[in-house]
């Protein structure tokens, strides 16, 4: 009896060990399986998104148009599919700037308030070659009643690359103009600025990234409207956090990892 019971114990021990080994093997197999799939998707590890992650509407619209889920003009007449930008790219990435690094660079309040936008682009893989990049800024319609009887209120938006920051914060940094546009107050829409040269410098040429500077000049010189038309900073607008998250500046990069065909817009299925 004694020997039998010990045998059973031994047997069950063996079974347990075997079961443990097989479950460990199956777990390892699953891990390998997942790793292979993630590698296929170009990811090092499985993403664990935080609850605060925001999906920009622009990326959703791009996806819908790209995958043929919707046609241009179906959802937003102002939406323009970036045919040229995406023609050589198979990967589109979006970035919000680090707000705590947003710096007011001119202390003089009578001047316009240029803001520095620093985008952390370190998540772009080395093997991804960027072909272009756009900075998207939202401008908000100013109602007629808020215009103090003025007609034709114009703003100039200048987008610069910061080439060097001075030690003394009161001095202007060295910058170069990347894109500029004159816009009128009468509509709410996104404006896209070509910032490809700067982003290509930072990624391909590995030059230091001091960020972009955006300056909004009010050409009609009415201080009451200063800083209200273009949504470049949370602090300049009295809007809810949710609204700000969708309307805040967005940097979009277009690149190719050399692995698949470019994003060509598909017909609606």
């Amino acid at each position, binding site marked *: 009896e004694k020997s039998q019971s010990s045998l059973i114990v031994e047997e069950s021990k063996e079974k347990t060990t075997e079961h443990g080994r097989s479950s460990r093997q199956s777990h390892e197999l699953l891990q390998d399986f997942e790793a292979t799939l993630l590698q296929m998707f170009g990811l090092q590890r499985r993403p664990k998104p935080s609850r605060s992650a925001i999906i920009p509407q622009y990326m959703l619209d791009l996806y819908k148009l790209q995958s043929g889920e919707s046609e241009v003009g179906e959802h937003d007449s102002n939406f323009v599919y970036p045919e040229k930008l995406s023609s050589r790219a198979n*990967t*589109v*990435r979006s970035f919000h700037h680090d707000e705590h690094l947003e710096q007011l660079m001119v202390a003089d309040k009578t001047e316009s308030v240029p803001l520095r936008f620093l985008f952390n682009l370190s998540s772009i893989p080395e093997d991804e070659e960027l072909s272009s990049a756009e900075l998207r800024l939202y401008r908000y319609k100013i109602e007629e009643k808020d215009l103090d009887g003025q007609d034709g209120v114009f703003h100039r938006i200048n987008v610069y690359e910061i080439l060097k920051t001075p030690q003394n914060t009161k001095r202007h940094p060295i910058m170069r103009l990347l894109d500029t546009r004159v816009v009128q107050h009468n509509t709410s829409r996104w404006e896209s600025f070509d910032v490809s040269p700067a982003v290509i410098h930072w990624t391909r040429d590995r030059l230091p990234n001091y960020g972009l500077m955006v300056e909004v000049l009010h050409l009609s010189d009415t201080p009451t409207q200063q800083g209200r038309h273009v949504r470049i900073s949370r602090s300049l607008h009295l809007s809810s956090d949710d609204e700000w998250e969708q309307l805040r500046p967005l940097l979009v990069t277009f690149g190719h990892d050399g692995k698949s065909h470019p994003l060509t817009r598909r017909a609606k299925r």
Partner: protein
Amino acid sequence: NTKPVRGRKKNRSCRRHALYVDFSDVNWNDWIVAPPGYQAFYCHGDCPFPLADHLNSTNHAIVQTLVNSINSNIPKACCVPTELSAISMLYLDEYDKVVLKNYQEMVVEGCGCR
């Protein structure tokens, strides 16, 4: 009911079959924003001698099938994808950044004997 189905011979030749990959089945829907899953399809079926035109065979597959009909040591041609298409995926990467990417050869569009 064992009554034989008349006029509907079960087609076992090489063809495309439905296969839906649902990302929520592997709990990947927390980082893949869109699509929720996709129709991947798969190819399965016989490549019988003689190979019909719709089986998209190559000259080599015809020769191999022909040889198989005489010598069964040589296998039949295989039923494989002959045309594939890409899918786009919108997802959050490891750094919480939103990425839209095109992945080629993810969907079987056509099958054939090769």
